C-alpha cells in the first residue's frame, strides 16, 4: 500500500516533482562534470604542462675550482664531465617510474657547417628522437623491459617542417634549427657537411661528415640555432662514445613532489645531479590547486541551488497536501509514517535526479574536457554512487524543514478547513 500511495502521489504531481528532479539534475550534473574533470584534471593539466618541455634536468656532478686572487675574481674552472649513456635506463627504475613520461639525453659540440659557399659555427646536439631504451633491471617484474622515449616525447610542441628522425640508427639525417637553415639557405632534402676540429693545434685532425636535412625545427628557443642528430652520430663524430652532457626528464608530478624524483634519480645514478625547474613546478602546483578549489566551490554552489529547489518544491507539496496529511493522521498515521512518506519521495527525487544528472554531467565533462584540455574525460564508474549519494543526501537534507512542517499539521484544524 505504501508503494501505491508513493507512486500515485508522485505521478499525480508530475510537474512539481519534475521541478525538484530538474533542480537535483543540475546540481548532480555539475558535481559529476567537475568531479570527473577534477579527477582527470590533475593528470590532464600535468600532461598539458609536459607538452611545454622537461621539468627535470640531469647533469653530471662537477668539481669547480674558483680562480683568482684576493680582490680579483676570474670565475671558475670546471672539469668537463659526462653522464654514461649506458646508465640512462636507471631513470626508469625509480619508485615513481610510471610518472616518468620521457627523457632525452643531449651531447653538445660546436662544429663548423658548410653548405655551398656558406659556412657557420653551429652547436651540434646528439639526442634520442624515438628510441627504445632497454631497462636492464626493472624495478618490478611487472614493468616493461623496453621504454620508448626521446625528444619527441618530451617536446611535442616543437614546430617541425619536414619530419622527425624516427629511426634511431639513421646516421645520415639531421634536424636543423630554423635560424641555421635560414643563414645557410638549407632546405629539406639538402645535403650539407660538418667539420669537427678535434684539436685546434693539430689542424690535420678534422672530421668531415655529411648530413641530410630531414626537418627544420622552430621553437623560438635555443633549438632554433642548433642541429640535431641521433646521439650515436654525435658520439661518433666527437669520439665521445657512451657519453652525454645532460638528460632532460619529463616527469608527471601530481601526487608526488618533483624533488622526490630528483633525489631518487641521484640515488640510482650517484654521479649526477638532478635539478628541478622550480618555477615551472610551483606554477603547475599553484594552478592545479586553484582549479580544484574553484571546482569545489562551483560544485558547492550548484548543490546549494539544488537543495533550495528541492526545499521549495517539498514545502509547496506539504502546503498543498495539508488536508491529505491531516486525513492520514486522523485515520491513524503516526508522525514517523508521514516522515517516511515524504523522505521516500525526496529519496526518489534524489535517485532519479542523481542518475540523470550523472548522464548529463558526463556529457558536460566531455565538453569541458574537449574545449579546455582538447581531450576526452574518461568515464569513472566510482562517481555514480558518489553522485547518487550526494543527490539523495541533498534531497533529504532539503526536505527536513518541509517534513517538520508536515509533522506539525494538526488534523483537527486542517480537516475543519482552517
Amino acid at each position, binding site marked *: *500500500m*505504501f508503494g*501505491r*500511495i508513493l507512486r*500515485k*502521489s508522485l*505521478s*499525480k504531481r508530475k510537474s512539481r516533482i519534475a521541478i525538484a528532479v530538474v533542480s537535483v539534475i543540475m546540481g548532480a550534473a555539475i558535481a559529476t562534470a567537475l568531479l570527473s574533470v577534477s579527477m582527470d584534471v590533475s593528470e590532464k593539466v600535468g600532461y598539458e604542462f609536459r607538452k611545454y618541455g622537461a621539468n627535470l634536468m640531469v647533469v653530471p656532478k662537477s668539481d669547480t675550482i674558483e680562480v683568482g686572487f684576493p680582490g680579483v675574481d676570474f670565475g671558475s674552472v670546471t672539469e668537463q664531465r659526462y653522464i654514461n649513456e649506458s646508465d640512462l635506463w636507471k631513470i626508469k627504475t625509480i619508485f615513481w617510474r610510471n610518472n616518468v613520461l620521457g627523457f632525452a639525453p643531449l651531447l653538445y659540440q660546436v662544429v663548423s657547417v658548410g653548405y655551398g659557399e656558406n659556412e657557420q659555427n653551429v652547436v651540434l646536439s646528439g639526442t634520442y628522437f624515438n628510441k627504445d631504451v632497454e631497462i636492464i633491471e626493472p624495478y618490478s617484474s611487472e614493468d616493461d623491459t623496453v621504454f620508448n622515449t626521446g625528444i619527441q616525447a618530451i617536446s611535442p610542441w616543437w614546430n617541425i617542417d619536414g619530419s622527425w628522425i624516427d629511426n634511431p640508427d639513421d646516421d645520415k639525417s639531421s634536424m636543423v634549427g630554423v635560424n641555421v637553415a635560414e643563414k645557410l639557405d638549407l632546405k629539406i632534402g639538402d645535403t650539407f657537411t660538418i667539420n669537427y676540429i678535434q684539436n685546434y693545434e693539430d689542424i690535420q685532425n678534422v672530421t668531415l661528415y655529411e648530413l641530410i636535412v630531414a626537418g627544420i625545427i622552430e621553437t623560438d628557443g635555443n633549438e632554433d640555432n642548433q642541429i640535431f642528430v641521433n646521439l650515436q652520430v654525435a658520439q661518433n663524430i666527437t669520439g665521445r662514445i657512451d657519453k652525454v652532457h645532460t638528460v632532460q626528464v619529463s616527469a608527471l608530478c601530481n601526487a608526488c613532489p618533483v624533488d622526490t624524483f630528483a633525489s631518487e634519480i641521484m640515488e640510482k645514478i650517484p654521479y649526477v645531479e638532478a635539478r628541478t625547474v622550480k618555477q615551472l613546478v610551483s606554477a603547475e602546483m599553484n594552478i592545479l590547486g586553484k582549479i580544484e578549489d574553484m571546482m569545489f566551490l562551483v560544485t558547492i554552489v550548484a548543490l546549494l541551488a539544488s537543495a533550495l529547489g528541492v526545499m521549495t518544491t517539498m514545502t509547496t507539496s506539504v502546503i498543498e497536501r495539508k*488536508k*491529505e496529511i*491531516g*486525513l*492520514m*493522521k*486522523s*485515520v*491513524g*498515521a*503516526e*508522525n514517523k*509514517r508521514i516522515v517516511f512518506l515524504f523522505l521516500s519521495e525526496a529519496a526518489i527525487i534524489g535517485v532519479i535526479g542523481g542518475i540523470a544528472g550523472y548522464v548529463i554531467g558526463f556529457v558536460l565533462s566531455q565538453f569541458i574536457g574537449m574545449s579546455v584540455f582538447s581531450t576526452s574525460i574518461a568515464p569513472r564508474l566510482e562517481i555514480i554512487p558518489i553522485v547518487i549519494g550526494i543527490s539523495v543526501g541533498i534531497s533529504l537534507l532539503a526536505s527536513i524543514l518541509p517534513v517538520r512542517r508536515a509533522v506539525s499539521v*494538526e*488534523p*483537527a484544524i486542517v*480537516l*475543519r*478547513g482552517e
Partner: protein
Amino acid sequence: MSSDIIRIKNITKQYDEKTRALDNLSLSIKKGEWTSIMGPSGSGKTTLLNIIGCLDSPTGGNIFINGTETTALNQTELTRFRRENIGLIFQQYHLVPYLNAVENVMMAQYFHSLVDENDAIEALKRVGLDHRLDHVPAHLSGGEQQRVCIARALVNEPRILLADEPTGNLDQKNGDIVLKLILELHREGHTIVLITHNPQIGDMGQNKVVLVDGKINAKKLLLGGK
C-alpha cells in the same frame, strides 16, 4: 457507570482568553448508544467530537474512552488509540484525491495494521459501492464519496463511530442512503456520536445533547435508535 464507553468529566477547551469552545462539560455515553449532538454554529459541537476522537485535546478535565484516560496519553499514543477504537466520518468526506475507492479504504488499513484488499472491497460492498471500486473521488458523487468515507471508517472495526454532519453536504436521496447505513451500524452494536443540524436525525438516537456556548443546554433521553 461500568457500561459507559465514553465518560467526559468537566472538560474545558480554551483557545485564548476570549475564546472558550467547551466550558466544564460532562457527559457519559453508554456502549452501543447513538448520541446526537446538536446546537448552533460555534457552540462547540465539532470541538467536542474532535476531543472524543483524540484529534484534539482539552485544556482541562478528563475523558475516559473504553476505560482508557485519553487525556493522559501523548500524541503518538492518541494516534494509536484513535486508529484502534474510533472511526471518523466527515461532512467533507476527506478522501485522498489520487487514490481510488478501494485504495482510500486500504489506506486506513495500512495505517492501522495489515492491508487486506478483500476486506476493503467487502467494506465497499457493504456500503453499496461494489461497482465503483476503482473510481477516484473526482468520479464519484457526493453520496458515493461519503459512503467510501463510511467504508474507510468501518474497515478497521472500531468500537465507536464519530460522524460530523455526515449528511450535511448531501441531497435528500443520498442523505437517506447514508443515514440508513449509519442506522444499520448502530443496530450492529456500534456506538455512534453524530453531529447534526437536522432535528429528525437528532431524534433518531437514544440521547440528544444540545450545546450552547460550550455547555450542555439540554440533554434528552429518546426512544429512538434500534
